């Protein structure tokens, strides 16, 4: 083989190109726009830092939106039908709503269903396909103030799910503990007006919150089970006066419990952290979610998922994001930063030591046995908004059946647009 000037030039060019490759690779950095919930810095940033460390070619521009308007702001961005944002946080019951309107990319090829709790996959699915990544779930447990129970001479509820309290027992103990005139309450829901928290009451009595196709509320949310259950809820505020009326801010009720103004709180796992950090002297115990004596135990579930904008131009990078964020160790890190109920089976084994407490034993049991996700409907936003107002009104009094029927009709009118 003879070296002509041409071969020398050719090989020189090839060598130059080979040398330049790493520089080109570095220059091909991908930027992903991520809209996330406005959780505090220290609970969010380490998560994304870890992702960037593993994927040096992907930079994340993370925007943390305040909870009060995150859904409305996302609506505007998504309705502009551009690729901004690439990734966004999804409240799990909104999965169907976004998916039906073409705002979520199908994720079936990226998610191995067998790694997750079945209820998490159910909450992430719409028409049999996965549209949101089940990043974390939730569960409610009954917190009680040990000191207040001691002072009133009441035996506190057991942590054993087989011996869980009935709602009737909660009411009876609440009557002994509450002194409404002194702003001392027996029992409070953490989220006093939200279907998330209140639907399990009716479901405990066998009620179904929405038709199976997700498009009809009449005959479901105003059926006898919900009328009876929400009648009981109303009694807590009006006749028995054991629950604080009008406290609809979900951040306020844990304050009431933490400062010793409320003896029992049905709240999420996350609230425990608030108690440990903010009220170090609070002596509290944890028991399973109550149920009606003639019904069955039902608990709420579902929480923050995230989704991919189908109009993103960075397909490879978003796939990497989904895969990494749902990996065992990043998901375990997320749990440590913010203890939502893990959706990944592996996290339960990996963090076995952390889960060796009453609270997490209860949560594990409930997640597997009693958890029922919120109804899957493209009209969940409308459903929730209408029901919230009705539940608020009911706590002030009024005819339960009439109010629920009116709400059901309104919901039917609003979600009719998603038919067909």
């Amino acid at each position, binding site marked *: 083989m003879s070296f002509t000037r041409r071969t020398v030039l050719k090989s020189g060019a090839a060598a130059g190109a080979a040398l330049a490759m790493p520089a080109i690779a570095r220059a091909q950095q991908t930027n992903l726009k991520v809209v996330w919930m406005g959780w505090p810095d220290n609970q969010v940033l380490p998560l994304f830092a870890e992702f960037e460390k593993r994927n040096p070619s992907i930079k994340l521009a993370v925007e943390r939106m305040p909870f009060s308007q995150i859904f409305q702001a996302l609506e505007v961005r998504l309705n502009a039908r551009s690729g901004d944002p690439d990734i966004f946080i999804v409240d799990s019951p909104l999965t169907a709503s976004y998916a039906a309107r073409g705002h979520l990319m199908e994720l079936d090829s990226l998610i191995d269903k067998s790694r997750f709790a079945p209820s998490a996959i159910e909450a992430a699915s719409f028409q049999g396909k996965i549209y949101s990544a089940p990043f974390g779930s939730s569960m409610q447990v009954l917190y009680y103030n040990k000191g207040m129970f001691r002072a009133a001479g009441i035996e506190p509820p057991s942590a054993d799910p087989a011996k869980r309290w009935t709602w009737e027992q909660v009411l009876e103990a609440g009557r002994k503990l509450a002194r409404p005139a*002194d702003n001392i309450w027996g029992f409070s829901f953490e989220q006093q007006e939200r279907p998330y928290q209140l639907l399990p009451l009716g479901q405990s009595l066998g009620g179904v919150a929405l038709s199976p196709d997700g498009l009809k509320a009449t005959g479901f949310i105003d059926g006898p089970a919900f009328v009876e259950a929400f009648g009981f809820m109303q009694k807590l505020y009006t006749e028995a006066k054991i629950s604080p009326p009008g406290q609809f801010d979900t951040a306020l009720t844990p304050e009431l419990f933490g400062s010793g103004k409320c003896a029992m709180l049905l709240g999420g796992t996350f609230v425990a952290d608030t108690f440990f950090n903010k*009220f170090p002297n609070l002596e509290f115990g944890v028991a399973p979610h109550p149920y009606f004596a003639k019904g069955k135990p039902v608990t709420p579930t579902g929480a923050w998922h995230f989704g991919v904008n189908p109009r993103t131009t960075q397909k490879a990078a978003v796939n990497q994001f989904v895969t990494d964020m749902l990996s065992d160790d990043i998901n375990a890190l997320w749990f440590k930063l913010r203890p939502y109920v893990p959706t990944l089976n592996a996290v339960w084994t990996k963090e076995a030591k952390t889960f060796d407490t009453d609270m997490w034993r209860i949560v594990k049991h409930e997640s597997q046995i009693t958890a029922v996700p919120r109804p899957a409907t493209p009209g969940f936003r409308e459903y929730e908004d209408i029901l919230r107002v009705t539940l608020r009104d009911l706590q002030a009094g009024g005819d339960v059946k009439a109010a629920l029927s009116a709400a059901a009709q309104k919901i039917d009118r609003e979600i009719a647009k998603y038919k067909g």
Partner: protein
Amino acid sequence: MNRPRPLPTLLRYATMSLIAAILLTPIYWLIISSFRPADEIFRFAGTFSLETLVPRRLTLDNYAQIFASSFPRSLFNSLFVAAATVALGVFVNSMAGFAFAVFDFPLKTPLFIAVLLSFMMPFETIVIPLYTLMRTLNWTDTYAALILPEVAGGLIIFLFRQFFAGIPKEIYEAARIDGASWWQIYLRMTLPLSGPTIATASLMMFIHQWDAFFWPLVATSSADLAVVQVAIARNMTLEQANWGALFASASTAVLVAAVPFFLLQRYYVRTVVSGGDK
């Protein structure tokens, strides 16, 4: 003239003081809570007592916390955005108001009706097209997106137009005969006369931008461009709230916004009262 009778006067003042106290209590509570330690904020809030109003312990922790965060940057952003909107807005809106008041031109009435309608329309109805427009111009996530859509305001144009319409036409004609250009008349004669209107318009634009929350949230995404209301709202999430930081940042925002209002309130009241009888 009757001599004021002491008892009714006393009673009147007592009643007015009581009403003032009731109205001011929530603001007082907001500010005093920002100086309380976290575990005391709600301890005395359920039943009204002396301890609800007088804190047991005072702390500057909440303020230390927000000023160590990105809050000062948000404070600057809001001040900058509000000041820039006011500076541009006074000229743009007064020129438009001048044109509507002084000139006759084709489609004047339909255009003026459009101006009136523009401030009666709820913002939610235009937010999606506005956002799409900003994207097309490549202005999303810039100060331009925060400032420019808010510069021209129907209500402000209306305010200037009402004021300029009250100036006798003869003055303009005399100035024209003396050889002044319309630009000189606007800049040298009418604008200096409209001090109170400028003060009112500035205040309205300033407060509007200071309170802006939803549009900035939609239009900008980087943390460096977060405005003050967004920074305040970040202290609340679904499951928990950083009440101390929330109250400290809200108190700071209220106090900063009050400064221009106190400086200009004399003029503000005067224009609102006189604006109606043109």
